[in-house]
């Protein structure tokens, strides 16, 4: 069967079971847009290519399937560089197809030419410039394979216009036809190392599981829970891992790091063993590296061996898929005498193996879920921190400014518990991570590593496209919203009913917070205005329902109204307190021991 390169590309995407793609056409990609008319793939026309990339990310983060975006050459391609960089940092599988000028014009500074494979080399897992139409099916198959296996990540396929127009004989490559001699991702952990890890784990007295985004990438939330429950080890979930272990679980300590809660931060600092699972010792988690968890040995499980010893030298470094390695670890622990799962899962009916007489665990408590009473003093210490240093804020119920935390708590309680929350980057992101209760995996969509402002609106749209059955809320800041709000036009025209809560404090809030705390309240270029633009009018102009909330009493009714709309997007402009800061906080470059808790709680930090 003879096809054009363009037809072969679309057919190849169909062969990869792509059901939706996000994009915006232009000159060099024109030939590829023609067969889309006849394709089973739904194409969502964005208003800016950055939106297409973030939508594909949101789609990928909630479905686990690769997000697909298509753009034209030159500015179309450069506009999607930010989402590629974002996906690369957060290991999100993305396949981006960019148009390119004809092969004969490459290198001549042709109209809308840019060297996008060169530009994106450092922000993609790999990229391809196709020069022969016969390569198209093979390259597409390779691209999806590379994007989704090993440590997932974004890839880019650059399609010159003459390659799209040329004809080729259709074929579909088998697994053996991929030409990737240098790509052999690991999956299973080395048994000897897994055994060493099991021994370290059983010898520890103050262990913490440090769960990262790799848990979600590896679909390992269930085995993580089994590991935690059977060993009784508390779990911190990084910003990228929120939802990978239920916040309501007694062993869950929540988010560590610069704005992590006191217990999560301090239990890592005092730990004698960090079990890092798919986490990468990011500077926002470790604070000053030489002061981070000084007494802890480290087990580091990561599918990317380059993460091992990069920031912190591990005592046992296991290269492998988190789900498979945790399964292996459970087997190794059993071999070393950890009681069988039947006795302990969920803490029901478990008879503590090394429990002293009379040490009956309270059902539902961390200890109940765990037979190793040697950890009881540690869990008691952790519980004491949780009791003494909770997250806090003060909302005057009748008067006074609206607190962002209050908005989030009200929103959390008024939405289904498996609601997907997307966020931008800044104070609102930290508030959302702190105050939401993530009890399900794949319900938190955010830009962690790159910290891309404007991520929330498009990623929420992509998430809703991927999971139309779920309620999707974007928690956004006013600064972020202004960066990508135009995609609400996309959402309105495509009938994608996302809901946006703007925590509008009229400032670039996180920068303002730093200027207040570290620059002697010299506020430089952070004021935005609460009502320029008028967010309600803007929302309505984009085909959304627009609402404004200024007092605590109006929060719940507005959210209820938003939840009742399901035929178009809703935007709520919450006018929040500009003076509210994110606490706890570990200042940049400081030790995690110097965590500062909310001064309003009266504890004054440490």
């Amino acid at each position, binding site marked *: 069967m003879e096809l054009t390169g363009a037809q072969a590309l679309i057919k190849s995407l169909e062969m990869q079971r792509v059901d939706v793609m996000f994009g915006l056409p232009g000159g060099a990609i024109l030939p590829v847009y023609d067969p889309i008319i006849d394709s089973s793939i739904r194409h969502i026309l964005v208003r800016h290519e950055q939106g297409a990339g973030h939508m594909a990310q949101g789609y990928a983060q909630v479905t686990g399937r690769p997000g697909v975006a298509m753009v034209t050459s030159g500015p179309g391609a450069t506009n999607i560089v930010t989402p590629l960089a974002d996906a690369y940092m957060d290991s999100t599988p993305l396949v981006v197809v960019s148009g390119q000028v004809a092969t004969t014009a490459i290198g001549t500074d042709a109209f809308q030419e840019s060297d996008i494979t060169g530009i994106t*080399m*450092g922000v993609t*897992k790999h990229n391809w410039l196709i020069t022969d139409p016969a390569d198209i099916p093979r390259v597409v198959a390779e691209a999806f394979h590379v994007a989704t296996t090993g440590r997932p990540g974004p890839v880019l396929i650059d399609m010159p216009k003459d390659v799209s127009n040329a004809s080729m004989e259709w074929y579909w490559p088998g697994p053996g036809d991929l030409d990737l*001699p*240098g790509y*052999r*991702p690991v999956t299973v952990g080395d048994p000897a190392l897994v055994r060493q890890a099991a021994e370290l784990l059983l010898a520890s007295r103050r262990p913490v599981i440090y769960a990262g985004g790799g848990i979600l990438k590896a679909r390992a939330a269930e085995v993580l829970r089994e590991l935690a429950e059977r060993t009784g080890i508390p779990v911190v979930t990084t910003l990228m891992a929120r939802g990978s272990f239920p916040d309501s679980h007694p062993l869950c300590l929540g988010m560590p790091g610069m704005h992590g809660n006191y217990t999560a931060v301090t239990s890592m600092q005092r730990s004698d063993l960090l079990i890092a699972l798919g986490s990468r010792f990011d500077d926002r988690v470790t604070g000053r590296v030489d002061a981070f968890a000084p007494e802890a040995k480290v087990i580091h499980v990561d599918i990317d061996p380059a993460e091992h*010893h*990069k920031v912190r030298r591990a005592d046992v470094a296991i290269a492998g898929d988190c789900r498979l390695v945790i399964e292996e670890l459970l087997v190794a622990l059993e071999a070393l005498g950890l009681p069988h799962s039947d006795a302990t899962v969920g803490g029901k009916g478990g008879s503590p193996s090394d429990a002293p007489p009379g040490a009956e665990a309270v059902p539902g408590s961390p200890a109940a879920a765990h037979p190793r009473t040697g950890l009881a003093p540690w869990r008691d210490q952790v519980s004491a921190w949780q009791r003494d240093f909770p997250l806090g804020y003060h909302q005057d119920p009748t008067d006074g400014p609206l607190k962002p935390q209050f908005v989030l708590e009200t929103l959390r309680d008024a939405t289904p518990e498996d609601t997907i929350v997307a966020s931008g980057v800044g104070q609102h992101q930290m508030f959302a991570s702190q105050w939401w209760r993530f009890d399900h995996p794949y319900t938190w969509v955010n830009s962690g590593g790159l910290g891309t402002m404007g991520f929330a609106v498009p990623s929420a749209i992509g998430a809703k496209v991927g999971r139309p059955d779920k309620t999707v809320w974007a928690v956004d800041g006013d600064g972020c919203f202004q960066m990508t709000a135009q995609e609400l036009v996309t959402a309105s025209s495509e009938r994608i009913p996302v809901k946006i809560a703007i925590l509008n404090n009229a400032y670039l809030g996180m920068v303002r917070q730093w200027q207040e705390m570290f620059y002697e309240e010299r506020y430089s270029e952070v004021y935005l205005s609460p009502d320029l633009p008028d967010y309600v009018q803007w929302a309505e102009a984009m085909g959304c329902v627009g609402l404004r909330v200024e007092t605590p009493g109006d929060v719940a009714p507005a959210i209820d109204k938003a939840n009742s709309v399901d035929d178009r997007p809703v935007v709520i402009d919450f006018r929040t307190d500009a003076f509210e800061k994110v606490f706890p906080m570990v200042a940049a470059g400081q030790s995690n021991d110097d965590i500062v808790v909310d001064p309003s709680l009266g504890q004054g930090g440490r």
Partner: protein
Amino acid sequence: MTVYGTDKRHHTLSVLVENKAGVLSRVAGLFSRRGYNIFSLAVAPSDDPRFSRITIVVDVASAPLEQIVQQLHKLIPVVSITQLPPESSKERELILATVGVGPETRGQVIQLVGVFEGKIIDVGHDRLTVMLAGDPAKVDDFEELLRPYGIVELQRTGRVALPKLTRTEPPSGRVLGFSSAHDTEKAG
């Protein structure tokens, strides 16, 4: 990580890569964006036309060698990486130098080239272009001894290297000449 040789900062990596457009740029880009320093770099096709061999001497003062190796491994076109410590590899480098010579120094330079078993490859009225291939230390010595005569132009190729052959064990089957003990299996 092994620290070896007289110069502990420089480690030689022999990197087998797919012979495709842009691969050198990917390797060089990785070094620049991660802040790793390259001391020297030599690229040429290997015995298999599908692959090229890049011999990189890296400066490990800029980053731990294992980080550099693991990051290189992540590049999709990198097929294998062989670490080549001097004590178990054969390293060679080539130098071309044009030296200014007068009536009384011409003979001295020719003699020096003879002692080092180099070659004179071009002769001018007041200049000689000389060549030497040898292990890097020898090339260093040669360059140093040439310097007083006045080096007009100089070009060194950077090192290339192969694992030293062992005579105590029977020959083992080698895939692409790359199954030595120093091979790093690619992962991730």
